[in-house]
């Protein structure tokens, strides 16, 4: 039997109409995912390999290792089909929906990475798919919108609120509440009501399963530190899961510090997405967890230069592990993330997602505290972020930014 709670966190805070679906899902999770009924897990692993491209390398980062005088390894989730760790989970859930006899997939997306992963998985498994996406995010993640449409998904723009991930999740829950009997909601991170946080973690834990074995192969031991960015926390939990019991391995969840850690209560806006570091306990989107909220309990608009970290909540298990002292919740601001983006691109030839760049921003600031063998999860590639990076880089005076004038010259003004 799976549990719905992680300490006091987690649970199932959803409208009653969803509870039966959640019970059905719990049952399916236990049978198929935990007990490999009908060979579900075998099929999942096989598809992850053939369609997804797993296993993925743990790459020694030569320039960074020299720069920080420590052995830095990159866990290359950016090489997963679709360009981010998201497919591990999306493929697992769409496949599970098939096993459950569901006829339709819905999902929300912020950065568009979960949406594209879900659209790809749905196309691969021949499931109709509808994706909810905030209008703001549609604007700032156009390439991913294209990709979802091209994979045959329907995109429904969400116009409420600020039009980002939080609103898209609410809207997807609404759809689910209406169509729950034939629809599976593929949640995009280790958030939401149980069993989602556990299930998404299990699908993502292939990251640390591989990384743990690869660490032993490459360095003959476990790493001193494992670093991953945290939005909802799915790449984070996936990267940590198989190390949680190894007390000697430090686990660092790097949140988006945005432009500042302080908060505008009046406007209901937090200029960051650092719910683990600065949030309070509360209930959002089905789970008790750490949240960005005002003193009344209204949810704040979070902010980050990276759309995929721009979420006011965080996975309940991660909140629990932070409270337990097992995981260090840290954060990195927009500027440092952008610098890290350029540094990794130029020094290692790996263009990371802006989300991922936060993990490298932390490395830059704290490498000397992380020991002699550090694994950083490259949760995704940065192709989706190119326009944002250009814009945000132009606004700033970064040390490591490249000169982009050739684009202006050739296109004749305007990037």
């Amino acid at each position, binding site marked *: 039997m799976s549990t719905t709670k992680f300490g006091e966190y987690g649970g199932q805070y*959803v409208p009653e*109409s969803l509870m039966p*679906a959640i019970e059905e899902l719990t049952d399916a999770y236990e049978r198929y995912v935990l007990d490999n009924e009908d060979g579900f897990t075998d099929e999942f692993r096989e598809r992850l390999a053939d369609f997804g491209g797993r296993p993925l390398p743990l790459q020694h980062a030569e320039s960074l290792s020299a720069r920080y005088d420590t052995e830095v390894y990159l866990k290359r989730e950016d090489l997963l089909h679709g360009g981010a760790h998201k497919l591990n989970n999306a493929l697992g859930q769409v496949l599970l929906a098939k096993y459950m006899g569901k006829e339709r997939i819905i999902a929300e997306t912020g950065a568009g990475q979960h949406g594209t992963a879900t659209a790809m998985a749905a196309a691969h498994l021949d499931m109709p798919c509808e994706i909810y996406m905030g209008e703001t995010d549609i604007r700032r993640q156009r390439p991913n919108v294209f990709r979802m449409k091209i994979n045959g998904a329907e995109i429904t723009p969400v116009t409420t609120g600020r039009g980002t991930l939080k609103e898209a999740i609410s809207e997807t829950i*609404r759809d689910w*509440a*209406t169509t729950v009997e034939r629809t599976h909601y593929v949640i995009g991170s280790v958030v939401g009501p149980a069993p989602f946080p556990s299930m998404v973690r299990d699908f993502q834990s292939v990251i640390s399963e591989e990384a743990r074995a690869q660490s032993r192969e490459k360095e003959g031991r476990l790493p001193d530190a494992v670093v991953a960015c945290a939005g909802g926390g799915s790449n984070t939990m996936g990267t940590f899961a198989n190390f949680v019991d190894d007390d000697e391995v430090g686990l660092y969840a790097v949140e988006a510090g945005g432009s500042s850690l302080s908060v505008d209560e009046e406007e209901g806006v937090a200029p960051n997405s650092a719910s683990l570091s600065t949030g309070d306990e509360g209930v*959002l989107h089905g789970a008790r967890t750490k949240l960005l909220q005002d003193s009344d309990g209204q949810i704040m608009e979070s902010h980050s230069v990276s759309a995929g970290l721009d979420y006011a909540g965080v996975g309940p298990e991660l909140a629990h592990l932070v409270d337990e002292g097992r995981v260090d919740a840290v954060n990195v601001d927009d500027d440092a993330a952008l610098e890290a983006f350029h540094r990794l691109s130029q020094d290692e030839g790996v263009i990371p997602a802006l989300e991922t760049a936060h993990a490298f921003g932390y490395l830059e600031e704290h490498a000397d505290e992380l020991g002699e063998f550090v694994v950083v999860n490259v949760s995704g590639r940065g192709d989706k972020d190119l326009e944002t990076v250009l814009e945000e880089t132009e606004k700033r005076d970064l040390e490591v930014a490249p000169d982009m004038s050739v684009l202006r010259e050739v296109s004749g003004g305007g990037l």
Partner: protein
Amino acid sequence: MGLEEAFADEPAFVPYVAAGDPSIEASKAYVEALERGGADAIELGLPFSEPIAEGSTIQGAVVRALEAGMTPDRYFAFVEDLDVEVPIVCMTYYNLVYQYTHPETGEQGPRAFARRSAEAGIEGFVVVDLPAEEAGPLREACDEFDQDLVFIVAPTTRGDRLDRMADHVSGYVYVQARLGVTGAREDVSDQTEQSLARVADWSVPKAVGFGIKTGEHAERIVSAGADGVIVGSALVDIIADGHAAGDPTADVADRLEAKARELKAGALAGARAEAEQS
């Protein structure tokens, strides 16, 4: 207990509006108009920033109420200020209950929220995202402060879950007429009768909501065995239209009162029809 009494003599009409929509004063006038129109109890929404169970109509109400500055403390003051006799049920989401800090005791959480509700004269709660499984702390606080805790039974609710809710419920049971989110519909769902059948032997009154729009809907629902009807979006539409058109509060209040009369009359007609059938 106040809530069950609302259903005691005749089928109840229970309107929903969001407190503070579109302003504190107008909202007060609207609540009072609904009582004049025949409301037997009022579900008064305490607006939450993420109303995941609401359709676009009530989302709109919530946004307007939040923009008008509604907060939990202002909500309680609003209730204390209301000039109505019928019981008030606070409809909200759990995070506001969970976060609530009592202004005097400094206590935080469900107990503080229940205490302050009781002080304000509220009779009970519907917490949309709080299933019976997670309701322990609030249930205890309700017992202590003499508040009812209403649960929603969905068309999909069956078996064990029904039993668990039967154990926790008080005041009335909110029978959700159809799957999905709130919102007025053109028709009445077939699922209603089946849902009513499933809770037939519960000791609390059965109020049906989700999608009821007209007196005729109300009549059919009551004739199908409901002890009352809950109507939200059809009323909020009137508020939204009036707000959009810039109509005087009194005019909108009159329209609400008239709509309330229609719905109450429908419910009564339904009761007569049911009496004839049986």
